[in-house]
């Protein structure tokens, strides 16, 4: 009798466990299903909206990588190819040459190349660029705004929470679909989004 009783008890617990198990399974399934309907099934990545960024320089120091995944990019289609590039030269620079004392970029990552009178081409050496945005500030304030910061996705680890985004004072960071992972300006942007 006592044995029977304990057997019943065990059975009851088994049934209870089984139904709870099913319930939990349904709950996990339900939540996932609900989310799937609202999911676009695409991966998302971090990107900077260049129209919001204020070049606070946090991008160069707050990335989890030893060298920030944020680099300056150049929309050549918008560039004036100016001799006196306000992204390249220190304000009030004594001469417009490639002397380090005249350059705005602290690492000399912007390369200046003569094209034809009076035009010069500027390219960014991403190995050297630290993403400080000094040149971006110069170009945006006095030039065409063809230099701006972007998260480079060959470098970015796609942190679940980007540690720069957390400290970005202008909230310029947002998640964008991995299929169109850049927010570009000029013709480059038009090409990219099509």
């Amino acid at each position, binding site marked *: 009798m006592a044995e029977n009783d304990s057997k019943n008890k065990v059975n009851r617990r088994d049934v209870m466990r089984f139904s709870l198990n099913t319930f939990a399974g349904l709950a996990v399934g339900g939540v996932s299903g609900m989310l799937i309907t609202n999911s676009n099934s695409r991966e998302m990545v971090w990107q900077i909206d260049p129209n919001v960024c204020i070049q606070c320089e946090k991008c160069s120091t707050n990335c989890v990588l030893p060298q920030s995944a944020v680099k300056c990019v150049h929309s050549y289609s918008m560039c004036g190819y100016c001799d006196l590039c*306000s992204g390249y030269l220190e304000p009030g620079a004594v001469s417009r040459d490639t002397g380090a004392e005249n350059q705005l970029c602290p690492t000399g990552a912007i390369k200046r190349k003569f094209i034809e009178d009076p035009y010069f081409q500027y390219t960014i050496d991403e190995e050297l660029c630290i993403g400080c945005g000094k040149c971006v500030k110069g170009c945006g304030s006095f030039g065409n*705004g063809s230099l701006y910061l972007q998260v480079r*996705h060959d470098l970015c680890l796609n*942190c679940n929470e980007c*540690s720069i985004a957390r400290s970005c004072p202008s909230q310029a960071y947002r998640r964008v679909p991995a299929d169109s992972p850049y927010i*570009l300006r000029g013709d480059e942007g038009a090409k990219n989004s099509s």
Partner: protein
Amino acid sequence: MIKVKKLIMSLNILLFKPSFVLSQVVERFPKPDFQSDYTRPLLQTPEPRIKLYEYFDLFVLITALSLASYFALKLRSRTKMFLLMIFCLLYFGFFRKGCICPVGSVQNVSLALFDAAYTIPATVIAFFALPLVFTLFFGRTFCAAVCPLGAIQDVVIFKPAVVSPWIAQVLGMIPYLYLGLAVLFASTGAGFIICQYDPFVGFFRFGASFNMIALGISLLILGTVVARPYCRFLCPYGVILNWMSRLSKWHVTITPAECINCRLCEESCPFGAINMPVMEHPVNRGKSIRFLAVLFILLPVVVMGNGWVFSRLSVPLSGQHFTVSLAAKIQSENSGITTGTTEETDAFRASGKTVEELFREASVIRQKFRTGGWIFGGFLGLIICLKLINLTVIRRHDDYTADSGTCFSCARCFSYCPIEQVRLGNMDPDEASKIKKSR
């Protein structure tokens, strides 16, 4: 023409000092018409790494979960489990740098549930749900070998000390607190705290902020004597896994057949996850029944009281939200309480958004925090009561069993069991029965 341009440019540089301006797209200089056959370089746009790996990651996760369950329940092999664990540590940890992580996905899921504007990728849903589904069937085999955070702690276990059950119970409340906070913060959009305070991700990336590394190193040092401290006393995902594992359809058993109460496995679990036999009914039955009755009466009071406390607490907590703290800064600057501006307030003023708009947003978020605080506090109160009830109700059981909630299914304890040794052919059945008699 060229001269004029150069002149304007120099004037620009001389007259204006770079001041606070949003970098705007203003065509101050015309785009050049090149005479030579110069063509503009193309702006390179490298593809995100994640696109390469997203399905492969999923494949690795499913394979690893299946293998871990197979090793734990069918092969009962610690060696194979260990090798799989090392592989997952290398793959999810050091190779994928620890950011495709079911532990953190709790936050993405909560944000997606509460914020319709946030779209969650299907792979993240899978990373959240698959370990839970596997746990519902096989127990926490995810923790045994797949989780990189668990694995990095598992490899440093050196001389695990016994944590007294009472301390373990009390410390075991921290994950509930952590989970509640993480869900509150994520669902209100205040940030992902599990990721911010992830102690081991710095190792996977060979670099992180000083605090992160310090936290990680101290946890690993602690982990040599207290096995898997993060898993047992912090991990928020572990809370959900624990619930699922209690309901699991199949769960590892220490012995492959019947427990002979030889006590050989008693101290084999570094995580204190082995339940000892409870032979007798508790001495003071009447007392514990009375205690239970009181608990049941107190339950609604505790739940409501906790809810109230946390709904108050959550208002200062909401200051962690960017919008709320920005609104506070703007307010104190506008009313002259603080002088000077910060980068945040400058950026806000330059953005052209109105102060009213900002304040409205901030008060919506504060309200969300208040509501969230009620739920979070009530949840904690409920958990505390349930824990106490669970501790008071002592169920009689005769065998040494792995606790279905806290056991990680790591397969360590199996080989201590003489019956297992018989199964493996390392021991004579007669010898085993002698052990049984001698005890």
